[in-house]
């Protein structure tokens, strides 16, 4: 039986129109460290791969000099992934070990993540890896203020890559970083110049990769500690539609019952999944020595994983929420009531 960490990770690259997705993909296609990857792009023409072409396998798929397989997404993403997988299993294309997926600039990534996590065929071969969002330093602030797609792309990101930093002043970059931090305090934000992108580093935020999960979770926790929580409890209007998206952290001192927590979180996401944009955390679970990490995007929750050790002396459970219009107090009270059910065996 294939276990979760043996599934092929899917790295999703999203970002608004003109934010540098194709530039990033273009560099990935050339990188020898991605020789074991397949990349699903929107169109061959945009990434300009003609001179790297080694073999054309069919009208949608080519093999590049780097060893990377490059495919165009057909009308349906799900069919494209399943078709690619069938050809991989049949030995018609090399057995790639990771899949990189480019979304369109206007895409809300949530349905894509849901498809990857819920389609019966896809989920038996693939798992969601890291979501990488490109944000253009020139237009990013305006897009985040006016375009809900742009906001959603940042909210689901594990890693935000700021592109074109050389075209604006540092002050504007700082304001953009601050805005992104308010929206998604757990995302790793880095700047990159064209041609100077460390592909390996960008793909390293996947917490299911060996030797990485501890450092990734430590970074989530440090991210909000370093901000003194000042933004974590401030409601921030982020769109012209006057919706209220903000993040907060619940720090819980009582060990959690895993079963009650699962009942509570699935019930919460069933009713409020549209408005619980992210939930990430490290849990102190009753009867489990290791800290347990959870990570979810709207209705999609990754399987939990153990860390070898706690990242610090702090043994509290920490749950980071990014929500739209839900009060922290209400969520905290609900979790407390559910976790309080356990003493009655």
């Amino acid at each position, binding site marked *: *039986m294939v*276990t*979760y*960490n*043996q599934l092929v990770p899917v790295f999703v690259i999203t970002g608004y129109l003109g934010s540098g997705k194709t530039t990033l993909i273009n560099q990935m296609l050339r990188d020898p460290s991605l020789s074991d990857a397949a990349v699903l792009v929107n169109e061959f023409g945009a990434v300009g791969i003609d001179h790297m072409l080694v073999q054309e396998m069919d009208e949608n798929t080519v093999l590049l000099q780097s060893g990377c397989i490059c495919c165009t997404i057909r009308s349906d993403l799900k069919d494209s992934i399943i078709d690619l997988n069938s050809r991989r299993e049949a030995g018609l294309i090399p057995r790639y070990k990771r899949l990189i997926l480019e979304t369109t600039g206007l895409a809300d990534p949530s349905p894509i993540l849901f498809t990857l996590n819920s389609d*019966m065929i896809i*989920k*038996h071969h693939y798992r969601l890896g890291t979501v990488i969002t490109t944000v253009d330093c020139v237009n990013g602030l305006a897009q985040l203020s006016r375009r809900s797609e742009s906001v959603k792309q940042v909210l689901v990101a594990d890693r935000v890559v700021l592109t074109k930093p050389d075209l604006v002043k540092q002050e504007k970059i700082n304001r953009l970083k601050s805005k992104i931090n308010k929206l998604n305090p757990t995302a790793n934000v880095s700047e990159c110049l064209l041609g100077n992108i460390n592909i390996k580093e960008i793909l390293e935020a996947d917490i*299911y990769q060996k030797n990485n*999960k501890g450092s990734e979770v430590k970074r989530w926790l440090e991210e909000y500690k370093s901000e003194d929580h000042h933004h974590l409890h401030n409601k921030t209007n982020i769109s012209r539609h006057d919706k209220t998206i903000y993040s907060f952290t619940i720090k819980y001192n009582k060990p959690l*019952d*895993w*079963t*009650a927590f*699962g*009942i*509570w*979180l*699935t*019930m*919460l*996401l*069933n*009713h*409020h999944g549209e408005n619980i944009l992210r939930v990430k955390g490290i849990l102190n*679970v009753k009867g*489990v020595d*290791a800290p*347990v990490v959870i990570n979810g995007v709207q*209705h999609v*929750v*990754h*399987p*939990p*994983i*153990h860390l070898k050790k706690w990242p610090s002396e702090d043994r509290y459970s920490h749950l980071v929420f990014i929500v739209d219009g*839900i009060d922290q107090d*209400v*969520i905290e*009270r*609900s979790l407390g*009531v*559910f976790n*309080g*059910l*356990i*003493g*009655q*065996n």
Partner: protein
Amino acid sequence: MCALCGILVDGPHWTESGTDGGRSDSNKSNQDQYLEKAHRIKILNIVLRPLGARAEDWSGQYIVRNLAGGASDVAPNLPAIWKSLEYILNREIDPLDPDFLLKLEKVHTDFEQLG
């Protein structure tokens, strides 16, 4: 697919794959899975009591019943249970609803008083 109910057999849901679903050796024994499921149904039934519903194990799946009307449905995992309950109870189920939480606390208190 289950030959009896026609439900497609899926992999374990994240709530059922233990607390370390990312590990290669995380598969639990049948006995552990049974005990965990029994514990889950026990807690689930405390949560369902204020809603007037009940859950039971049904050949590896869950069967949920509306205690007032008698309607029932089969669900493979927790997210499906909430959908089934909303269907058979004909109402939304909100764990943040203050009235629901008050009732849940009362159920808890009643259980504790019964010892």
